[in-house]
C-alpha cells in the first residue's frame, strides 16, 4: 500500500503523533494529579497511624474494580469525554501512591528523625528535608508503577468514545483488518511505557546520589555471605495492567 508506516485512517481525525500526544496527556495528567492528592493523604496516614489501615482497605477495594467498569459508570456523570478516562486513572494512581509514600516515609529511621529534631528542624522542614528525600526511592518506585500502568490502561478509553489515545487505533485495526494499526498501537504504547520507566529510573539515580548503585560493596570477611536485598519498592509489587 502507498503511504507511510504511520498513516492512520481519517475517521480518527488525528495523526499518529497526535495520538501519541493525546495518549501521554491522558496518562500523565492523572498520575500527577494522583501524586499531588496522595501526598497530603499519606502524610495524614503517617501522622495518625490509626488512619492507615482503613485508608488501605479503601484503596485496595478501589484498585480491584476493573477499569472498564469504572469508566462506564462515570459516563453518566461526565459523558464520553477525556475526564471520564482521567478520573479513574487518577484514582488508580492515587491508590498506588498512598502505600508507596507511607511506607517510604515510615522507612526513615526514628533515630534520623530524632537527630533532625534535636538539631532544631521543625516538622515542616523535617518533612521536606529529611523524610521526603529518604522516601524518594519508594515514591519514585510508585511513580514508575503508576505511570506505566496508566499508559497501558489509557487504551481502554477507546471504548468510551475514542478517548484512548493510541488505543483508538485498535478498533480501526479490527474493523479494517489492518494488523499494522494494531501493531502500531501495541508497540507504541509499550515503547511509551518503557521510555517513561527508564526516564524515571534516571530521575531516581539523579535525585538520590546517596544510594548505592547496585554494585556489591566488599563486606567484612567475618560476616556470613549476605543475600542481596530487594529494592525498596514494595509499591512495585502492586501490578495493574488492566
Amino acid at each position, binding site marked *: 500500500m502507498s503511504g507511510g508506516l504511520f498513516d492512520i485512517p481519517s475517521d480518527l481525525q488525528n495523526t499518529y503523533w497526535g495520538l501519541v500526544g493525546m495518549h501521554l496527556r491522558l496518562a500523565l495528567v492523572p498520575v500527577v494529579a494522583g501524586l499531588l492528592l496522595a501526598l497530603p493523604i499519606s502524610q495524614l496516614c503517617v501522622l495518625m497511624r490509626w488512619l492507615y489501615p482503613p485508608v488501605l482497605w479503601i484503596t485496595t477495594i478501589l484498585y480491584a474494580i476493573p477499569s472498564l467498569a469504572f469508566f462506564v459508570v462515570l459516563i453518566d456523570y461526565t459523558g464520553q469525554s477525556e475526564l471520564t478516562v482521567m478520573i479513574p486513572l487518577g484514582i488508580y494512581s492515587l491508590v498506588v501512591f498512598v502505600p508507596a509514600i507511607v511506607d517510604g516515609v515510615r522507612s526513615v529511621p526514628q533515630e534520623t528523625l530524632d537527630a533532625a529534631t534535636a538539631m532544631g528542624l521543625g516538622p515542616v522542614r523535617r518533612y521536606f528535608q529529611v523524610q521526603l528525600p529518604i522516601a524518594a526511592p519508594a515514591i519514585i518506585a510508585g511513580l514508575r508503577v503508576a505511570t506505566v500502568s496508566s499508559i497501558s490502561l489509557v487504551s481502554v478509553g477507546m471504548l468510551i468514545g475514542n478517548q484512548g489515545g493510541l488505543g483508538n487505533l485498535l478498533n480501526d485495526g479490527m474493523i479494517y483488518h489492518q494488523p499494522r494499526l494494531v501493531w502500531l498501537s501495541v508497540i507504541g504504547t509499550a515503547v511509551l511505557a518503557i521510555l517513561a520507566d527508564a526516564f524515571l529510573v534516571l530521575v531516581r539515580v539523579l535525585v538520590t546520589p546517596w544510594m548505592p548503585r547496585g554494585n556489591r560493596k566488599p563486606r567484612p570477611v567475618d560476616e556470613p555471605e549476605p543475600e542481596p536485598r530487594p529494592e525498596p519498592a514494595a509499591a512495585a*509489587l502492586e501490578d495493574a495492567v488492566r
Partner: protein
Amino acid sequence: MNVVHFVNAFFSDNAHWHGYDGIPTRMREHIQYSLIALAIAAAIGLPVGLLTGHTGRGGNSVAFVATAGRALPSFGLLVLMFVLLGLGQTPVMIPLVVLAVPPILVTTYEAVRSVDPSPVDAARGMGMAEPRILFQVELPVALPLILSGLRSAAIQIVSTATIAAYVSLGGLGRYIVDGLYQRNYEKVVGGATLVAVLALVTLGFFWLVARFTVSPGVRRSN
C-alpha cells in the same frame, strides 16, 4: 441518581436472569475463564518465582519481567491476538495468562528474597536440605506476600477478561461492551456492577485464604 436507577432496572428485569445471556451464565463463564487463566499463570509464575527467590539468581531477569509485564497494554494485546489468531478462546487466554504471570512471578520472587536470612541460615546449619528450607522455612513466611501477588493477578484477570468481551469473549464484559454499542446503559451499568462485585468477592476470597493458611506467628506483622 441515574446510575442507581439503571442498576435497579437491570437486576429486576427477569429476562436478565435466564438464558445464554443471563447473569448466572455470564457470571459462570467469567469465573471459569478467570480461574483457568489464574491456574496457568500460577503454574508458571509460582515455581519460577520460588526458585529464583530461593537461589537469588536471575534477579535482573525478574526485574525485566516486572517492567515488561506492566508495559504491555492489555487491551492492545487482546486485539492483537484476535487479529493475528482469529476468533476463539486461545487467542484470548494467551494475553490473560501472559499479563497475569508478572505479578505472580515478581511478587513471589520478592517475597522469598525478603525473608529474614537468620532462620534460613539456622535451618541450613541444622542440616536441612535446600528444597525443605524453601518449602518449610521460606514459603510459610513469604506466604502473605505471595498471596497478595496471586490476588493482584486474579483481579487483573477478572478485569482483562471484562475487556476481552470486545474480542468476543463471553462473560460479564459482554453486558458492558454490548450495552455500549446498543446504547443500553441499563446493561452497561448492570454489567459494571456485576464485575465490580466479582472483583470484591475475589478480594474477599483471598482474604479468607490468607486467614486460614498463614501461620499466626507470621500474621501479626501484617
